[in-house]
């Protein structure tokens, strides 16, 4: 197996921003995580008649930033709006654009649906014969790359720009790519994260796969029966620790390492032995030059589907061995929903808040774990804890597995 290069420069997170079902700011998100609140509620964004599940973690405060020109606001997709709002919060806090030139700031985002919500309406109008044309803007605005274009345009970011789409691990991979760029010295700062919006297509697709839970999802619970979709964005500003220190920026956490793998098994079902998940965690630890013993907390992928949670629990056991019973594992998807392409970023943000503020977010809706898992799954209530290092797992369709390692700054 390939040995990864040891970290040559420490990389830290100096800006945070988010919009999701639990809040429109990092502060609100942190408070809700601590309180064990759930943002899963009846879905009102579109008509859910005929669907088995009728709930989701929908963002209610979904207005575009006010200061944008009307001509731009008109063309924004829902994913674009979330990305802009979260980026505004992250950049304002970090102040990086005052210090680093636009060409030296990179941008790498993850996502899966992009502008599909608007594109659906346009395709529907055409298919139902209400329109003889496909409107260009919703269609050309549908790829996930457009959110990065919009963010770069509004905030004048001119460095390397990339959008990654690997289903539910998209923004985990984005964070890892940002780390690689900084280690390679390509730029001086990266705006990274992910954005996602609910749309009929994904809701119908997961519904058709019988993957949606009819009640709010219960990750790791014996009676778990599927996932609850969510939406939102999380954006991080990352830079070298040395640069952050020089300019007196606050480091919320360290971005220590990452690993990715493919299951090479099935497009939707995880490898039954968790081969890909195990590889991703091991690669992440190696990339971070850490041992399993160094990790205190894992923010699991933990969707609440029967298969994922069982495979993930077993994989954690396989990677951590005896150390598994000493670390805390929780899933925040009962709180913020499964935000697909934004999940890696939103959950990395939850992990950063846990490291920074010294608490472990609970696995909301978990009442009774499977008895054979010897894991501390943090049911119901958050708890105070001093955490050194933590892992954030994201596993997506295509058998794509990503683990990101974060550390106390």
């Amino acid at each position: 197996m390939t040995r990864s290069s040891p970290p040559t420069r420490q990389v830290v997170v100096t800006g945070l921003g988010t919009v999701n079902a639990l809040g429109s700011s990092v502060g609100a998100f942190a408070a809700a995580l601590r309180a064990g609140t759930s943002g899963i509620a009846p879905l009102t964004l579109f008509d859910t008649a005929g669907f088995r599940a009728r709930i989701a973690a929908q963002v209610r405060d979904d207005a575009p930033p006010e200061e944008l020109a009307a001509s731009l606001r008109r063309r924004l997709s829902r994913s674009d709006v979330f990305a802009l709002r979260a980026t505004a919060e992250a950049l304002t806090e970090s102040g990086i654009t005052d210090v680093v030139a636009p060409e030296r700031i990179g941008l790498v985002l993850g996502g899966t649906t992009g502008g599909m919500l608007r594109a659906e309406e346009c395709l529907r109008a055409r298919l139902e014969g209400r329109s003889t044309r496909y409107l260009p803007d919703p269609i050309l605005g549908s790829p996930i790359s457009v959110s990065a274009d919009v963010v770069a345009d509004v905030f004048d970011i001119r460095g390397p720009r990339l959008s990654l789409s690997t289903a539910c691990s998209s923004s985990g991979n984005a964070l890892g790519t940002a780390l690689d760029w900084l280690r390679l010295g390509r730029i001086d700062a990266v705006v990274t994260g992910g954005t996602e919006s609910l749309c009929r297509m994904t809701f119908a697709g997961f519904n058709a796969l019988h993957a949606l839970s009819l009640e709010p999802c219960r990750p790791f619970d014996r009676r778990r029966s599927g996932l609850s979709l969510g939406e939102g964005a999380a954006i991080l500003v990352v830079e070298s620790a040395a640069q952050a220190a020089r300019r007196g920026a606050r480091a919320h956490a360290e971005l220590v390492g990452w690993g990715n793998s493919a299951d090479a098994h099935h497009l939707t079902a995880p490898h039954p032995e968790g081969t890909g998940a195990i590889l991703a965690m091991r690669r992440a630890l190696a990339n971070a030059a850490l041992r399993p013993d160094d990790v205190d907390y894992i923010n699991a992928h933990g969707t609440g589907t029967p298969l994922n949670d069982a495979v993930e629990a077993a994989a954690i056991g396989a990677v951590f061995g005896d150390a598994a019973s000493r670390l805390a594992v929780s899933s925040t998807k009962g709180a913020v929903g499964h935000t697909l392409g934004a999940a890696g970023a939103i959950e990395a943000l939850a992990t950063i808040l846990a490291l920074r503020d010294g608490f472990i977010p609970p696995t909301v809706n978990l009442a009774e774990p499977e008895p054979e898992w010897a894991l501390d799954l943090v049911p119901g209530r958050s708890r105070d804890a001093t955490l050194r290092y933590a892992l954030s797992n994201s596993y997506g369709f295509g058998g794509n597995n990503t683990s990101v390692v974060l550390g106390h700054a």
Partner: protein
Amino acid sequence: MTMSSEDLKSRLKELLITGLRLQDVAPAGIADDQPIFVDGLGLDSIDALELVVLIEEHFGIAIPDEEVGKKAFASINALADFIAAEQSRDA
């Protein structure tokens, strides 16, 4: 209107082939008593879900849960029997 048992089985085999996009398989290549979900046809859980949809769409019969589904999908014979039973129940 119910069709003869042979016609029904024939129709089910065609549905399997076109609906599940089976390649290089002719209706004659699917035995009536052959397990549907086994290595030979290479079907998996997503195919099972799709088959449920196809049965509902073409015969108007809902398969309420996995238990019923497993029995009904055991073979072409089992599926034909299940559909015939549901149809005579509704009649």
